[in-house]
């Protein structure tokens, strides 16, 4: 190299230590949230989807479904809010798969951050976008005619439980994205969630399904999760413990899988 062409430049000093887990998780989460907020297609689609879904079930199918004494809208909305993540979660899986396929995860793994903070940051970000989906869908629910059967406090408790589901289910979609070879594959894999969303007591009472289907509908996790939200709204708490147990199980099973899987991108 010729020394004559060199100019004195300010130089970067090496950081004295690698970043801590909290800081690293925050950075990973912030980037994912920025991407979400700055891609109108991502959050706008959620709103369009929620509206169409509620509209169809409330006004198209609703008349033919007999569920509960207080009208189908009061049966439908709590269930949809509780399971909204099953419909938006595909986006999480796609984002995770694309980060892996596109080299972003590799970049993170080549940096000196604690590696589990990649999974933690991702969970933080996606739980936040899920909270947005849950709350905006709940607001739409009121627009479509949903009314609380109990006190506002009961309603808030139900909403809180939905937020817990949001975190728990996020981890499952992250893992799905980590095992998908591409964004498109992740999209396909996330369709499995529809099975759980529809073969449950969320949209029609499980008791109206054929006998051979009922065991699955009754014992899969989404049914108690939906039932718990409905019951909280009415001021009771049946199935809440079971729903929380399922949520905890999701979290405890999928978070370590995500953390380990992120390691070997």
């Amino acid at each position: 190299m010729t020394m004559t062409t060199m100019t004195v430049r300010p130089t970067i000093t090496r950081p004295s230590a690698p970043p801590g887990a909290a800081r690293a998780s925050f950075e990973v989460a912030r980037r994912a949230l920025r991407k979400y907020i700055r891609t109108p297609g991502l959050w706008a689609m959620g709103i369009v989807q929620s509206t169409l879904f509620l509209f169809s079930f409330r006004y198209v199918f609703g008349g033919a479904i007999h569920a509960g004494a207080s009208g189908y809208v009061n049966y439908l909305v709590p269930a949809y809010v509780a399971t909204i993540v099953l419909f938006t979660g595909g986006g999480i899986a796609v984002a995770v798969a694309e980060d892996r396929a596109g080299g972003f995860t590799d970049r993170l793994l080549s940096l000196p951050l604690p590696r589990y903070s990649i999974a933690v940051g991702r969970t933080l970000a996606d739980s936040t976008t899920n909270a947005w989906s849950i709350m905006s869908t709940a607001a739409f629910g009121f627009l479509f005619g949903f009314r609380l059967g109990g006190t506002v406090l009961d309603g808030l408790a139900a909403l809180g439980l939905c937020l817990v589901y949001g975190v728990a289910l996020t981890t499952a979609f992250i893992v799905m994205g980590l095992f998908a070879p591409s964004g498109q594959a992740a999209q396909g894999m996330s369709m499995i969630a529809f099975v759980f969303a529809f073969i449950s007591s969320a949209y029609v009472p499980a008791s109206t399904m054929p006998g051979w289907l009922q065991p699955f509908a009754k014992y899969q996790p989404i049914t108690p999760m939906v039932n718990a939200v409905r019951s909280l709204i009415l001021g009771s708490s049946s199935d809440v413990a079971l729903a929380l147990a399922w949520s905890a199980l999701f979290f405890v099973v999928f978070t370590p899988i995500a953390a380990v899987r992120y390691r070997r991108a």
Partner: protein
Amino acid sequence: MSIHSREAPLLEARGVTVRFGKVTALDGLDLIAPPGEVLAILGPNGAGKTTFVRTVATLLRPTSGELRVLGSDVVRHPVSVRRDIGLAGQFAAVEPTMTGRENLEMTARLFGHPGSAARRAASIVIEQLSLEEVADRRCGTYSGGQRRRLDLGASLVGAPRLLLLDEPTTGLDPTGRREVWDAVRALVGGGTDVLLTTHYLDEADELADHVVVIDHGRTIAAGTLSDIKASVGRDVIEVEVAEPSRLGEVGQILQSVTLNPPRVDQGSRHASAPTAGGAADLATVIRYLDEAAITVDEIGVRRPTLDEVFLTLTGDHADTPVPTADVQNGSPR
């Protein structure tokens, strides 16, 4: 600027093997690279270049063998390796919805810089890579070359001692390639050691001091690029004729002048032959072609292509790998 007084080699690979199930991507790779240089890993697609870079970057663990980066073992001290390296992979791993500056600051914080130091590091890199004009635009709007430069910048904000560039210009147009080459040269001038992979011979030519040629996961040659070219073949005279029917005659002329067997390809209307005589042989060939009234679309002397280097290296020397001395003995410059 930094002075290369470090003792540990930049890279030290001994029998590094990486297997994915039944596929062996690296098959006992050996290499030693002294600090203070640009090393290019050259090889065809599937040779194991990317696997090697990913192993150096601690994204993959070697199945067996030993790999040290600036003295740190990639398996035992991965965090210390990660602090020493900056990786720019085959894809520009920048977030398109964030501005160039935001991307750099994020990466700087993930290297461990606190807020103000991260901002400062980002600004320095923006200036260093001449990205001032686009720094505050979302990088989804960047050209291919700008995006790669930003990606390069992201690997620099932690002041790494070794920059890993995996096929840094693949998929770029000539302007973009030139931009990236200039940026890499400037970095090297500033004292950053670079390991890059490429399947372009000219890229290695432009940037590297030393070259390691790998194929099927093994080192098959190492040294300076001219050493390697000299060891595998001479310049080539190449002729493209207007009428394919006369290729046979062209082949004969090439043979008579260069005394080497010509290669003739009817499909592309090309005939070529290695030559020891360079420009003088070329002049003779042109004269003969003219006398025979053969219309030529293109003619010239060129360096052997990577294909030809590989054909020679993998064909002729397949049984006896020929690592030449320079890189292997680790002598500082």
